[in-house]
């Protein structure tokens, strides 16, 4: 084998620069890997494009681990999103129910139907009340008989023990406002008891506030879980790339150069997971939509399923990649610091 050396000058002294050196010789061995100039911005963008391609290549190299990680991240991100969505929809529903909630004014036992009608007439002019309905003593008895199935027991009483009832529908729906209205109505002469038919809605709303808290907690736990999943995948990736990292550092790569493809990897895992989470949530909504429609037919005011708003989708789409990025920075940063020299 013959090496193709341009220079074969025996006896050249150290550092000797031949005066008659040909120009192309000088080009041939000129110092420094001086790349063509492209400008700092172009170089920066090129480095990032390369890192993105590197991140993708590394993910493609172990497709199973990649898809599994993305799927698990997606499921993890979908859980708090779905819970949040459920709480949001039930909250709207509860508001609707509360809006339609009436206040029943039970008159004192000695009141007759005429007293109820007089009271109703007065309340019709109240600006805080939209509709007023009177339930006469007979009607009340009928209702009770029909509903409770206690007909015979009532017959034993002989006389109708029930007072007439005036049912009013409040104009507003603000809970504190409703509470003061109820109190005012309870204080009216002839009114024994003012009962809001919303106690169960309030209980539901309290429950939803709890569920909302839980959704936040679940969101935080999910963030930790995603960091662990992505971090573990990246740690294994970093281990399998240790030889390349060691050699690259020997050849002049900075820590940032070594990290960059992994950072893109983390971003891609997070983004992929967010996309999967969107898919899961949207598919889930489509799946329960027919059931909701059937349910809606039983409600006069209708029932509408609200999907995630743009804000929530964007939040998810940002949180995933950001979480991946931060995790990659911590995990790979640590690995690179611990890397031994070749």
């Amino acid at each position: 084998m013959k090496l193709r050396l341009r220079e074969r000058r025996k006896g050249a002294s150290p550092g000797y620069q031949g005066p008659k050196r040909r120009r192309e010789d000088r080009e041939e061995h000129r110092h420094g890997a001086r790349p063509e100039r492209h400008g700092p911005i172009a170089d920066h963008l090129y480095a990032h494009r390369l890192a993105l391609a590197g991140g993708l290549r590394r993910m493609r190299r172990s497709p199973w681990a990649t898809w599994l990680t993305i799927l698990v991240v997606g499921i993890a991100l979908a859980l708090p999103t779905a819970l949040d969505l459920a709480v949001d929809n039930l909250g709207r529903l509860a508001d609707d129910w509360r809006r339609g909630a009436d206040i029943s004014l039970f008159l004192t036992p000695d009141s007759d139907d005429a007293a109820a009608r007089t009271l109703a007439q007065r309340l019709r002019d109240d600006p805080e009340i939209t509709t007023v309905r009177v339930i006469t003593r007979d009607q009340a008895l009928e209702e009770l008989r029909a509903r409770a199935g206690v007909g015979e027991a009532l017959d034993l009483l002989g006389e109708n023990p029930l007072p007439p009832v005036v049912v009013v529908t409040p104009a507003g729906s603000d809970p504190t406002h409703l509470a003061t209205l109820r109190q005012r109505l309870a204080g009216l002469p002839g009114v024994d008891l003012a009962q809001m038919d919303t106690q169960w809605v309030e209980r539901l709303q309290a429950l939803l506030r709890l569920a909302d808290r839980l959704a936040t907690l679940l969101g935080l736990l999910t963030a930790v879980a995603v960091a662990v999943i992505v971090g573990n995948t990246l740690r294994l990736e970093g281990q399998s790339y240790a030889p390349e990292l060691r050699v690259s550092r020997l050849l002049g790569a900075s820590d940032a150069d070594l990290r960059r493809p992994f950072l893109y990897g983390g971003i891609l895992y997070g983004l992929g997971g967010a996309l999967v989470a969107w898919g899961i949530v949207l598919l889930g909504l489509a799946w329960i939509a027919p059931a909701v429609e059937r349910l809606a037919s039983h409600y006069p005011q209708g029932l509408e399923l609200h999907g995630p708003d743009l804000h929530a989708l964007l939040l998810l789409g940002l949180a995933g990649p950001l979480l991946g990025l931060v995790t990659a920075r911590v995990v790979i940063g640590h690995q690179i610091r611990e890397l031994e020299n070749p």
Partner: protein
Amino acid sequence: MIRAERLVKRYPGGHEALAGISFHVERGEMTFVTGHSGAGKSTLLRLVAGLERPTRGTLLVDGKNMATLPRRQLPRLRRRMGIVLQDPHLLYDRSVFDNVALPLAIVGMRPREIAGRVRAALDKLGLLGKEHLNPRVLSGGEQQRVGIARAVVGKPDLLLADEPTGNLDPDLAREIMDLFRAFNEVGTTVLIATHDIYLIEHLPYRRLVLERGALRRSDAA
């Protein structure tokens, strides 16, 4: 380019591989480091390359104090070095071409420009026909030449080579030496560790002779 003063390297475990040596290698000079196995040649080169830190004394490389140089400033210096380690440390998940292209890719050179430079380097080392092979299928000597091609492809200011001709037959070894000399003639500072005194005995370069971590002689041939 390289200045050592009472340079000491003690490995964890207490072994003193370099016991306070002083020397100076001028910019553009070509120097051999010789001595028996275990004399401290590799240690000296690793210190200059920043792969190990000095224990005591001073080591200046291109004016940078290698004892105190911050980690994040090392890459800048490394990019101006070509390093040939005893084991070539090739990457076996890619072709010979891609191995040699690595230092150029690290400094952000574009593929078009990389291709020309890598071929030129492979050509100089007689590896042009092997560029698409995986280095795993190459002989020890060929792998070593791939490592040398990777070290010179970036046209470094400082070339460090640890036993670069260890796996090569005598003819090839001489040709590799000639390649290093050619780089030196255009101003590259070259520091080569070798125990092969027959290969270099007729070459007109200075020799640092190490013996159990001490500098026995520093003589111009």
